């Protein structure tokens, strides 16, 4: 109100203030209720309809891979647009190709066990997505949900909310256009703490998939709603003398500089045996790493960890900018700063997670001492997440894997894309399960099967009781038209009433060849891998 109207109280009248909940909580609840309706409809879709929807959404996302890469860098200030393009493609059409032969929809018959498994989706997935891999994470979570007939409410990190909201809407529009129920993907435009809390604790949320900082993940787990939360990483990488040091060096530098270390799977501390150190360092320099002198190292440590805490201004910044800010002169071609230190201990800041291309470097007398050092890295943070090793000695690799408290070890491959499943045969994802080590409920990379469970029709074990003939019996149907149908008045609907759903399962002759929960797409996976490697080498060369 203007000052022209005298007010009886000190506060100006604002009618809107009385009406609008600033946290947007009621609107968020409305989204969940719409989501509940959409989930109810989507849970009865058949495989062919789901496939068409997934493909359409992925293609729409991939078509904007470049636009969203630029936008994400612009909005968050993190990372490398070129690399984000790759991630956006890998996490849209790439991920769909990877799961192309899977089936999370059609009932499976196990004649031997006398059990029929009927897939039942989780329902409403609340996807909390981070600022570091914003669009790729939105893509992965939405597409895994679509594959399993779940619906999604995306709550993006506030730093990346613009690009995430647009990415989610792009997928939503394509999915609905392809026949998905209205409201299958929704997004919170103005995320806030009370709003996220309301979403997480709401009974209509079936499962929370939380990627982000520790507080967000812990909040998800304490919400009372089933949650899949994953912890932070702090990746040790061990190199011993049996490794192909030239390849190891190149892989480490490529991985550490990929998207400026923004993947949580990126190498944090390089542990090298004395025997291999000199040769590896030569190769690292050749690949674009710069070895900091002790004085330079201290300046970088002080810059990145003022007061002992990582300064998030440097998340996803490139090596030359960090060097410049630290007042250092480094070669123009520098992609990674190597920061040597003696001992992995809590008071050593460089031993902690660094989401920027600064790689700690520790020399150890033996592989056994290297394993100790790797365990020490994970004592600081990153338990359950990931580690890497470059070695050709299976015994060392086995000992390493059995000793470090992580649930995936990338072997002879860059850690960033290796542990994320883009350069290994792990499930491709931006969401890395940290298991019991990391106080999480999932140990694997986030996978569609985390979002769907099965009703098991379990027959009497006695063979005298005949097992039913379920061949081709599918309870799901393709939608008859838009879902929900537009409410046309009953005297204008024409002569054909809509087919009522739930009239019993239909027999189909075309049956899925593949048992959904056993991945086999090596050809497609190889193709993605080749594409990424090709692009990476071009980037490295340029």
């Amino acid at each position, binding site marked *: 109100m203007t000052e022209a109207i005298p007010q009886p109280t000190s506060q100006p009248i604002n009618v809107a203030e009385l009406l609008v909940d600033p946290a947007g909580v009621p609107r968020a609840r409305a989204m969940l209720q719409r989501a509940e309706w959409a989930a109810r409809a989507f849970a009865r879709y058949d495989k062919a309809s789901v496939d068409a929807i997934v493909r359409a959404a992925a293609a729409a996302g991939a078509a904007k891979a470049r636009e969203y890469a630029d936008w994400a860098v612009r909005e968050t200030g993190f990372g490398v647009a070129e690399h984000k393009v790759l991630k956006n493609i890998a996490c849209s059409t790439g991920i769909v190709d990877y799961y192309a032969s899977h089936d999370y929809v059609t009932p499976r018959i196990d004649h031997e066990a006398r059990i029929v498994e009927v897939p039942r989706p989780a329902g409403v997935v609340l996807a909390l997505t981070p600022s570091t891999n914003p669009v790729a994470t939105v893509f992965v979570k939405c597409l895994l949900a679509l594959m399993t007939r779940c619906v999604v409410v995306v709550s993006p990190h506030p730093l990346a909310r613009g690009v995430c909201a647009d990415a989610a809407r792009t997928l939503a529009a394509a999915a609905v256009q392809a026949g998905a129920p209205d409201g299958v993907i929704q997004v919170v435009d103005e995320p806030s703490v009370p709003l996220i809390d309301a979403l997480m604790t709401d009974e209509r949320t079936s499962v929370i998939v939380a990627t982000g900082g520790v507080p967000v993940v812990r909040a998800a787990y304490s919400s009372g709603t089933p949650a899949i939360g994953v912890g932070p990483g702090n990746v040790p990488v061990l190199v011993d003398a049996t490794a192909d040091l030239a390849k190891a060096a190149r892989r480490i530098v490529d991985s550490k500089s990929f998207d400026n270390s923004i993947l949580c799977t990126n190498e944090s501390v390089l542990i090298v045996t004395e025997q291999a150190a000199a040769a590896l360092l030569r190769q690292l320099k050749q690949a674009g790493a710069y070895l900091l002198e002790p004085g330079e190292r201290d300046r970088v440590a002080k810059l990145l960890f003022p007061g002992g805490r990582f300064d998030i201004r440097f998340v996803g910044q490139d090596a030359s900018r960090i060097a410049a800010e630290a007042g250092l002169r480094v070669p123009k071609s520098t992609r990674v700063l190597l920061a040597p230190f003696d001992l992995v201990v809590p008071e050593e800041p460089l031993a902690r997670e660094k989401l920027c291309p600064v790689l700690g470097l520790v020399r150890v007398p033996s592989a056994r001492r290297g394993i100790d050092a790797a365990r020490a890295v994970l004592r600081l943070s990153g338990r359950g997440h990931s580690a890497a090793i470059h070695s050709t000695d299976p015994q060392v690799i086995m000992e390493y894997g059995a000793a470090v408290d992580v649930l995936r070890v990338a072997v002879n491959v860059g850690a960033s894309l290796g542990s994320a499943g883009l350069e290994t045969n792990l499930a491709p994802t931006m969401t890395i399960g940290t298991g019991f080590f990391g106080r999480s409920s999932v140990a694997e990379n986030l996978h569609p099967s985390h979002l769907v469970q099965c009703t098991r029709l379990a027959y009497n074990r006695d063979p005298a009781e005949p097992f039913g003939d379920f061949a081709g019996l599918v309870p799901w149907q393709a939608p008859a038209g838009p879902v929900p149908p*537009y409410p046309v008045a*009953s005297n204008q609907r024409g002569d054909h009433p809509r087919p009522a759903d739930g009239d019993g399962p239909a027999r189909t002759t075309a049956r899925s060849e593949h048992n959904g929960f056993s991945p086999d797409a090596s050809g497609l996976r190889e193709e993605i891998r080749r594409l990424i490697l090709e692009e990476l080498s071009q980037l490295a060369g340029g």
Partner: protein
Amino acid sequence: MTEELISFASKQDMLAKSKQFWNPDKTQFWIDSGVPLVIDRREGYFIYDVEGKRLIDVHLNGGTYNLGHRNPEVAAAVTAAMQRFDIGNHHFPSLARTALAEALIKTAPRAVDSPPKGEPRGSGGKGFPPGSGGSPGGSPPRGLAKVMYGSGGGEAIDIALKSARHATGRRGIVSVAKAYHGHTGLAVAAGDERFATLFLADRPDEFTHVPFNDLDAMEAALRGRDVAAVIMETIPATYGFPLPAPGYLAGVKRLCGRYGALYIADEVQTGLMRTGELWAISKHGVDPDILVSGKGISGGMYPVSVVLATEAAAGWLTEDGFAHMSTFGGAELGCVAALKTLEITCRPEVRSMVHYIAGTFTDGLARIQATYPDWFTGIRQDGLVMGLEFGHPQGAKFVMKRLYEHGVWAIFSTLDPRVLQYKPGVLLTPALCEELLERTEVAIGKARDDAAGDTATGRRR
């Protein structure tokens, strides 16, 4: 505090006093009808009898409780407003009235999404003007520019009819037979004689009633060019929601244009997203000269009613703004409740949900009908506006009684007791829809046997 003011020894004691001090006939009617309901607690779509019986409300008092009873958001808005506002002074420009008027004219129509691609377009039955009638989600009414306020639907209808008479300089009002527009002076005369003659309130010389869905009769009534307005419920509620034939309403509007009469859309029961669009009339491609809303407009928390009119139809506001007034019309607390109600109703999520709910009832009721085709003879549905037809002159009364027994409150249509008014809420959850359909199926089955064994045709009403 409520207990200090309201206290009865028992339900029987209360009912006796209700007859003694309030309305003996009506009180006895419900007892005789097998619906001895005295509503106490209420929450969401549930009402509770004083003895604790839970009922799902699918009467909603004609949409008054569209958003549920005591919707927490509306309640919070009114509670907050009470710290600053009361009814207000009807002479002066008012914060809340102005804000609501602006929202109704601007925000509300804009907030309705255009239908997404892929939704079916209208079948375009005979009589449709090209490019308009029947197209689902047709554009919201254009040209509405001013808002006038009442405290209830009847008063708002009176304001609408007065405005039309002023604008046209004519007295005649045409409405459809069996229409219901409320009980105030002009409104009751426009409605069915059932409520007018008892009070000698019918005015046959000025008020003409024509059969519904009959364009020839309508044209005959308008041809004399002495009619100020045609007033139409978009779907006549108390008559059991007979649906306007494809093109009928657009045809009426065309005739109004031809003979210089205004078109008044009574959207008291059909508006506020009940048909899947904010105003049902927009599904018929009609831009009314005047649109009336009441009941649900203020979320069932504080009464208010509104009349939206074009500049031409609202001319008296410019000529003599004191010509009509109402102490309680546009009470500020009601306006705040309405602002919140409108905001909730216009959320894209809510529109989507209404479409889901409507589809669920289309399927569920079709399944029930398939079980009892000879008894459950017809379904009139436009979104969440539903009339269920039964094969007995008093059929809906049997169903109402059995529904009550099975925990559902739905009312028969006063002007056509074959038809049950079935008006589920716009914020229903999937779980409650399923529960409601199950209860409905069982009640309809039992009512069939009741009706088969009945020889009397029931009481009046």
